[in-house]
Every structure is written in C-alpha cells, then in structure tokens.
C-alpha cells in the first residue's frame, strides 16, 4: 500500500520527460502531425489514438492505436473522462494494476498545424459562411471520407477527402481557388 502513490507517478514522469525532450513539432512543415513523439509516448504507459468506445457499465475505454484496439479500465479516479468521446483523438495515460491497464488520465490530442497555417475558430467560420463563398472569398473543404460529407457537412463546404487530395493536388478545387488568392479552410471530424 505504501508505495502506491509512487508507482502511479513513475509513468507520468517518464512521459513528461519524453515529451519535453522529444523532437520539435515544427520540424516537418507539410505533415506536422508527426507520429514520432507519440510512438515514444506509447511505450511509456500512454496510448495516443482515436477513442473507439467507452462503456460506463464495464468501466472500459478502447483506443485505436496503429489500427488495433487497446482496452483500458477506468474508475472514479481517472482524470479527464469527459475527453473519452468516441471518435475523438486522445492521449490516455495508464498504469498497470496486476494484469490490468488502468487509465489514470484522458487528455484531448490537439492536432498540430503545419507552418504558416492558422487555426480558424467557430465564430469566424460562421461569419464567413453567412456571407457565402463569393462575398467571403473562401473555399471551405471537408477533408473527411466522402460518405461522411454526403450525410452532413458544414454549409457551403465542398468534399475533398485528404486521401484524394494527396493524389490529385488542388485539381478538385474551384477555379478561383486554384489562383491561390482565396482563403482555403479545411476541416474534418474534430481534433485529429
């Protein structure tokens, strides 16, 4: 019983150390969501990935890490459970209790933006949409898979899934956007 608090802290300290000493995120401008620092964190009792499920009855969270689902238990002491939302990217830190992985905290995984790209907030976007693409001089791009776009997208958005974008470049953008003077706004299903 005596050394329990210490056991709980060791993984946390390890992670903090790794993150602080990890590679800088501004290193690769085009694909700044570099997996390297996450991979380091995976080893140190933390999973970074999409939350694929949460059951309050079974007190279990599942996280998709490298295409596989990992299961963790949680309890009343788990911090940040409100961030364990299905479909959202999160960092789940855990400790081992016997053979079980217990989530100690859940944090939202914030995406890092490529150099020279600024975030747009909801209010600002709403104002532009009220003006419409012509007057607001913008093209809003939905980066999610096309099926997602079809069932519901932000008004005035066009569909250009990131996978298609990589293959076709900006050929799918409207002509005026290809002149590169238009504000291009990308979005997807949350902080991923």
């Amino acid at each position, binding site marked *: 019983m005596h050394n329990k608090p210490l056991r709980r802290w060791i993984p946390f300290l390890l992670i903090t150390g790794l993150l602080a000493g990890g590679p800088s995120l501004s290193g690769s401008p085009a694909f700044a969501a570099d997996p390297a620092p996450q991979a380091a964190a995976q080893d140190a009792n933390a999973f970074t990935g999409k939350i694929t499920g949460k059951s309050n009855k079974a007190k*279990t969270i599942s996280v998709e890490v490298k295409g596989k689902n990992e299961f963790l238990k949680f309890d009343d002491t788990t911090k940040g459970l409100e961030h364990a939302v299905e479909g959202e990217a999160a960092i789940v830190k855990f400790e081992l209790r016997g053979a079980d992985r217990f989530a100690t905290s859940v944090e939202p995984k914030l995406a890092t933006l490529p150099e020279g790209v600024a975030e747009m907030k909801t209010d600002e976007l709403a104002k532009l949409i009220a003006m419409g693409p012509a007057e607001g001089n913008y093209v809003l791009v939905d980066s999610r898979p096309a099926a997602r776009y*079809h069932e519901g997208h932000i008004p005035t958005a066009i569909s250009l899934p990131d996978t298609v974008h990589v293959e076709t470049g900006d050929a799918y953008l409207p002509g005026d956007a290809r002149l590169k003077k238009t504000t*291009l706004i990308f979005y997807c299903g949350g902080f991923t």
Partner: protein
Amino acid sequence: MSPKSAGLAKKMGHTDVRVFLAGIPAWKKAGKSVTASEKFVQTGNIVLVDLRSKEEYEAGHIPKAHNIPMASLAAKEDSLPIKAPVVVYANTFLEAQQGYNLMKKWGVKTGSIWPGGVKSWTDKGNKLATGPTPASISWTRKLGKNEVSLAEFKKAMDDGANQLILDVRTSDEVKDGILKNSKHIPLDEIEKRVGELPKGKEMLIHCSTGARAEMAKAALDKAGIKSRVLIADVECEQGKCEITD
C-alpha cells in the same frame, strides 16, 4: 485529416490556408446545422421531411419526402425514428434550421438540412413529386457489415451448431437473466479470456445496446475469432430477457 490537407495546400503555393480544427463536433455543439448533399437526398437511407404547408407540399415536393408542416412538428415527436438520418427542408434555411434544432433536441442522431428547398432541388435538374403525404413514416435500418440481424440472432439462440452467442454485459446485469445458448464474458475480461471461446464457431456478440459488443468485437478480431454484433436493446428482468430492435 484536415491539418495534413492544409499542409499540402500550403506546399502547393496557396497563401491563405486555415484549419477549422474543432471540426464538425464543435460546429454542431455550437448549435449550428449541417447540410446534406444532393446524392444523399437522392439515394441515402433517410427520412426526408418537408416542413412547408400541406398545399405547398402537394403541389410539388422532393420524392420520398414526408410532409410535417412546421406548425405541427412539435406534436410529431413520436412519429420520427430517432435512429434514422433525418433530412429536413423548408422554404428558407432559417425555417429548416428550426425544424432541425427541434429534432436534435428529440435525440435524432444524424440530422441535416437540404438547403434551398424544392428550388435548389429542381435547379439541379431533379424532378418533384406531387400529391398527398404517405400515411406513416417507415424506416428500416440497413445492417452494418459487422452486424447480425435480430432474426438470425434469434435463430442462433435455438441452434448453436455453428454459432455461439457471446454476452459481454457485466456480471451484475447477467444476474437478471441471460439468453439461451450464450456464453458470458464481461467486456473488461474479454482480452484475457478469448481462449475460452470454442474454435470454429462464429460468435454473435451482444450487450444491452450494442456499444460494448462492438468494443468486444475489436478484441475478437485481434484474436482472429470470427464474430458479428447485435445492435439492439437487450433487457432482462427476473430471468426473462426481451430483445428489441
């Protein structure tokens, strides 16, 4: 991922590139609506609702649409299948949005708006239908690719030759009743106990709604065990269980 696309655009020489990082969830949370595409209205497995007056509807509406005039929408809560993707349209976006907001409040899971109503529909070269609205709204969910139908599931309760029902509810829940021909392993023990499952049988996984069953399926996939999931409500009381779609 939108940041990836933004990086690509930047590389291609676009100067003003932004990312709405919070994305769709934040947009909806802020009380704003999303719009459906033309293709989704044409071919999606949806419930389409025309919020205009009866006269306007009968004179010309988008095919498949049901007429629920805005004024009577509040009283129609029970006639809408909340699991269905509901697409609404009206004469103005504002009216459509009012209907959308109300349905969201009822718990409609995937609601959206067809913007521009019948005008944008015909502008895109689509035809309108005429006449009275169908008597009732019917909608059948299409099975997902990992899903077992309730009918097939019930058959497996009587004949376990090739299939076994896997119950992943908690031990407490199981005290109130368990289905025939089923094996119980709580979700949080699945990973450790997959070895107990018989080889060569397909597992049909259920819980009380389907959410935990889907989580369990991931564990079975990992272990290379064939399985499908029942998305339905399973309620047990005093040894008797009821399954409803």
